[in-house]
């Protein structure tokens, strides 16, 4: 029995997958971050096509209300992904701070080099 709901679900999942791939193709999304999204949209697509799988998995785990399993899985996945992004942001912040310091040090060095080439220690504009 194929309801309208299933068609929409398959379409949305496929659309998500295509969007991710398109972003990677245009180099707007780096491969290492795309991987999680591709896996996620593939899982969604699989669930949309083979709806029974969710019921089976819920039954096997002893969950009475199958959609609860879906929500739990999604929340868990989002949690992991956002933790991963926090790590990435922390690392980038460290890199940026390092670069800012380095820029300031280089700026001073350039200033010193210009000053000494003019024969004085005074600043360049």
């Amino acid at each position, binding site marked *: 029995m194929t309801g309208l709901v299933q068609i929409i679900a398959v379409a949305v999942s496929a659309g998500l997958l295509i969007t991710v791939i398109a972003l990677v193709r245009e180099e707007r999304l780096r491969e290492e971050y795309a991987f999680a999204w591709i896996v996620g949209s593939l899982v969604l697509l699989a669930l949309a096509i083979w709806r029974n799988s969710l019921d089976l998995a819920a039954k096997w785990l002893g969950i009475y209300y199958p959609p609860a399993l879906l929500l739990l899985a999604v929340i868990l996945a989002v949690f992991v992904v956002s933790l991963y992004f926090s790590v990435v942001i922390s690392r980038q912040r460290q890199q940026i*701070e390092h670069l800012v310091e380095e820029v300031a040090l280089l700026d001073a060095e350039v200033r010193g080099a210009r000053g000494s080439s003019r024969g004085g220690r005074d600043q360049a504009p």
Partner: protein
Amino acid sequence: MSGVSFVVPVLNGRRYLRRVLSAISREARGRTAEIIVVDDGSTDGSRRIAESFRLKAEATRFESSSRGFRLQAEVRIIDGPRRGAAAAMNAGILEASHSLICQVDQDVVVRPEWLDMLLRALDDPAVAAAQGRYVVPTSARFWSRMAGRDLDLRYARLPERTDHVCTGNTAYRASALHQVGLFDETLGYGYDNDLSYRLVGRGYGLAFCRDATAEHFWRNSFAGYCAQQFGVGYGRLDVVRIHPHRATGDAVSRSIMMLHGPLTLAALAMALLSFVAVPFGIAGAVVIGLLAAERALAGIRAWRLTGDRATLLFPIAHMLRDLVWAWAILVWLARRLIRIERDPAHSMRRPRTTAPSAAANARVLVLVPAYNEAANLPRVVADLRAGFPDARVLIINDASTDATADILPALGVEWLTLPQRLGVGGALRAGVRWSRRHGFQIVARVDGDGQHRARDLARLLKPIVAGQADAVAGSRFLRGTHRATARRMTQRLLAVCLSAIARQRITDPTSGLWIFGPRAAQLLGDCHPGGYPEPEIHLLLARHGLVVREVAVHARERLAGRTTLTPARAAVAFARTAFAFIALTLRPDRVPRQ
């Protein structure tokens, strides 16, 4: 007759040092000998004792040599590298000029004819090292007898040729030491086992001289016993990791002793599992019972050997030791799991040592972090010129939005301009890195708002130059009374917590007036905390065993403008610091090696 170099590493060994050194010089009399005392940063006056001993030896040396007979040993005192006992010994060995090296610990008093007997054993060129026998001094109390009598028993069964010699009352052939590459400086307790195994691996023989005796003054307290046993157990794990085939022990530590730690751990695990199934609990009890029985038998044997009835309490004392060993195994495994590197301080805790004194002519750089301080900076610079004239000044403009950037060139000092705002932590890190590239050993910092007086810096500098501290902070609260405002109460709370964790008195945790000596500057250049970093600097320095002192200073109100520290930001800073307490203790050490 070949000469002998005695190497005595000393770290806070005031208590027995005089007796240790006199015993050595008695043994050395009439030989070509030198005594090298390696002071690894003592803070208890050991250095003075060694120094007075050296002067006395110097005087009598000439006296007796004029008679022509009793040549006295020459005494030298060198600075240790402060990286652990093994590193200190290596420093002494490298300093030694004779072909035989006697290594004596700071709590070991050798008895007459000790040296003669060891040297006789070393007459055989195949022998690389000869160890004397430790004996328990008559003054020893309960806990030191629990360690010492056990050693008596183990030594009683030791053959004359052995596969392990302990350090501490031992003579080494210098050439053999150099051939195997000296002691492994990454090891704490167990560095002597590691060296012995390497010597045996090279085909050398090791000798045990039963009749060359030395009194060993063990730690005499319950806490001392536990700390030492933890170190011994932990260090042994490091050694076994390097020499896996020695997991079964050696002639001194037999395999049954090696089993005690793991079996106790297993028994504890089984006790936990007994909640799941009762048979586990029974098996655990059986294991504990067997271990206790083994110790009880050992206690009886030790009693018959030494006549000391306290050894009958071996089961109790040594089961406690086994518990400590089980704990050491857990800590060791945890450190390997989170990939903390091997460190001698893990098994041999180092007391806080004095800083190596900075060169008297070391160049000083004053860092002034500034965010929107255009109104104050000219006066700050003028104050520094007048009050602290020998230092260079570096202003770090933290992406100010006012006229700061415009006035900097006219101030006649060095400056950096950060293109993005990083906060005071990032600004200081940039400043410390600039100082390193330009060869400054000492770095000071004052706030850009003019609240600090430059002439206080000279007083802060004194302990650094004298080698009494790695970092000095100006404290506004060391003297006088202060109004009990909410802000002040928060600072008090922070100060109490910091003092407890850093194990030194801190009264002003948020002071912005600092001078950092070479060791501290090195550390901060690598990992200066960000945000409002002052309390975290205290934590970082304490965590790395650096000595921080406070000097009372008077702070003015800021000259112009407003502080960036609003109540909300202060609350965030407090929470951040509270979290840093936890985070920093979990983080591995980042002391730059060498």
